[in-house]
């Protein structure tokens, strides 16, 4: 805390109304409301809530599931979608993020969904635009709709979130999915254990949210868990950290043996894309407890709820 009082926030501007930038700043009531709204959304029964609205999908990074999911969600609500990729657009010619954003606003965007390699990029856009901005993943920071769809998926199998014991295993440091999930689970009152080597789960990660625990033992983290959330581990990152791949696999890979330490009805989750044989074994990915495919499906109603809410229709 600074010792000097400000007459007003130096940043000056707040995000445009309806923006969804992260879970950290989202009140619990808003999380509940989005989850309830998602339950009313059925991608197979389109509702023209957003007829005539233009949803701009601005992707500075490759994406399969998030992009497809937003696109299908928008169309199921009657909106039109336009996809802008950084390659093949004026972004390639060096146009700044804000100038691109102003251009999209000028062509009539009602909401911009953005995926960007830099943390805070959606926040910058939201401060300078008068239309809502939805964060579809910003660098290593947050991926709020993924955390929301994971909570939505948990609620389809478990009565309440506040009694859950969750193990998050893998590369927390580089993961925007992990940061969003950690904030959401902390807000709903779940007990979360982060598990991985210090290079990927630094000790200081315990300060991310109240009620977090860190364990270096996969067995300890998974034992008795209601949910085991596995995070992707990138080979290149292990190389950069001088952590041997066999060592990681022997200590932290989720195998059937390890998964059996969790509750009998435990859910096995993974935000994808999965790398079989690295962070989990082949059989774990397809085991009856795995909801990996369901997570992808649930992305659509959840993102329908997010888009509807962003445009004041929910």
């Amino acid at each position, binding site marked *: *805390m*600074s*010792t*000097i*009082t*400000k*007459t*007003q926030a*130096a*940043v000056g501007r707040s995000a445009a109304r309806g923006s969804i930038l992260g879970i*950290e700043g989202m009140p619990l009531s808003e999380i509940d409301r989005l989850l309830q709204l998602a339950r009313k959304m059925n991608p197979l029964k389109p509702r023209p809530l957003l007829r005539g609205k233009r949803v701009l999908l601005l992707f500075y990074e490759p994406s399969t599931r998030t992009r497809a999911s937003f696109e299908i969600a928008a169309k199921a609500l009657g909106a039109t979608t336009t996809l802008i990729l950084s390659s093949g657009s004026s972004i390639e010619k060096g146009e*700044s*993020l*804000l100038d691109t954003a102003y251009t999209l606003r000028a062509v009539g965007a009602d909401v911009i969904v953005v995926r*960007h390699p*830099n*943390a*805070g*990029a959606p*926040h*910058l856009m939201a*401060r*300078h635009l008068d239309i809502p901005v939805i964060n579809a993943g*910003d*660098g*290593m*920071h*947050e991926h709020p709709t993924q955390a929301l769809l994971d909570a939505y998926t948990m609620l389809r199998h478990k009565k309440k979130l506040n009694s859950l014991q969750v193990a998050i295993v893998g590369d927390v*440091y580089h993961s*925007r999915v992990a*940061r969003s999930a950690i904030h959401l689970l902390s807000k709903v009152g779940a007990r979360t254990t982060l598990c991985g080597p210090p290079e990927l789960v*630094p000790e*200081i*990660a315990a*300060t*991310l949210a109240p009620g977090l625990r860190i364990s270096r033992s996969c067995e300890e983290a998974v034992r008795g868990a209601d949910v085991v959330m596995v995070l992707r581990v990138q080979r290149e990152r292990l190389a950069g950290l001088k952590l041997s791949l066999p060592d990681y696999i022997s200590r932290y890979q989720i195998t059937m043996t390890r998964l059996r330490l969790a509750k009998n009805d435990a859910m096995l989750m993974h935000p994808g894309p999965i790398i079989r044989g690295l962070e989990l074994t082949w059989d774990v990915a397809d085991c009856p407890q795995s909801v990996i495919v369901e997570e992808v499906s649930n992305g659509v109603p959840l993102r329908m709820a997010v888009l509807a809410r962003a445009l004041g229709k929910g």
Partner: protein
Amino acid sequence: MKQSSQSHSLLIRNGHLIDPVARVDALMDVLLRDGQVVEVAPPNKIRGGADEKFDAKGLIVAPGFIDLHVHLREPGQSYKETIASGTAAAAAGGFTTVCCMPNTTPVLDSPEWVTWVRQPQRGAVVNVFPVASATQASKGAVLTDFRALQRAGAVAVTDDGKPILNETTMRDALRTSAEINFPIVQHAEDTRLTQNCSMHEGATSLRLGLRGMTDAAEAVIVDRDVQLAQQFTGARLHVAHLSTAEALKSVRRAKRNRARVTCEVTPHHFALSDSDVRDYDTNFKMNPPLRSAADREALLEALADGTVDAIASDHAPHAPHEKIVEFERASFGVTGLETALGLAVTVLHGRQKMPFARIVELFTAGPARVVDLRGRGTLLRGSHADVTIFDPKKRWTFDATKSRSKSHNTPFDEWQMTGKIVATIVSGRIVYRSG
């Protein structure tokens, strides 16, 4: 002594004079004539008239403030700042002398460019002393000609913006420093440890998903340089914008060993910490970055106990297109000339109860010693007539849009502060007066 074309005298009356070198902390009148201090005496004891009188009742009168670390951006980057606009901001901040950094376009690595910066056509309103580049084009490989740069008027050398990373290069620089009594200013950052990093490594960087600079990146270079400096009797090492508790330990050890090692601390590092980096506001992005609360506490202690020699602004103006971008892509640096005193009085005096005499020392005698500015940093008779007058109790709010700097990239916009510059006098002439 050359007589100026028109003789001019200025009498500053009824002020509270603080001059740490003269050991004065009392009501005194000061008479300036033809660019020099000619008399200092208790109120109403100075006889004879003066062309101009300044009533400093209720104000503190101090030697002109000296800022060791300012980026004036000329030559080559006048879209960010010019020598004229930067020195106007300096005057508004109470600085009568600034030392400008060489990371311009081209780099100040030749006597010709050092001379160019000092030419009257640049329109400087305060004294400008260039710090030249330590290596050619600041590429870190081949040392510049220190002797020639010194003769041209450079007061030190540095590769600021970057460190002198190579051990042999640094050792050679310090050897020459000892031979010609010339300070080497180090931007202490082991850049091998800070690739792609945009803020301090800690809980906040982890939360924001930003790659963090470890405090060790500063400490290892300071530690190494202190050891290298002690190999040559008389070598002078000055650590720029020191920001970590670890690096302070090396400086303390060097000072105990009577090595000629000095350091400066910026107002933003003693006023803010990494947890103030909120909402990806790039006005909180600078290098070295805002550090942990513990580092900040260590700086406050070191400012008080004498380990720190000077407060320096590291005024680093940038244009909007370099700052209103993604945090990780934004340029490092914040402006700081006009907020330095307000922050010092508010934080160091208001909260830490630091006496005004020590604050004045950190802005005057301290920096003057670091780069040997003879006749500055004090108002002893015969000194340069550079004077800073401030109101220690005045509460005010900084408005970045009214800054004299060409750039407005400050984290302190709309901050309420105590302690305001009332007048800045350079060579006996008032160059700034608060409106």
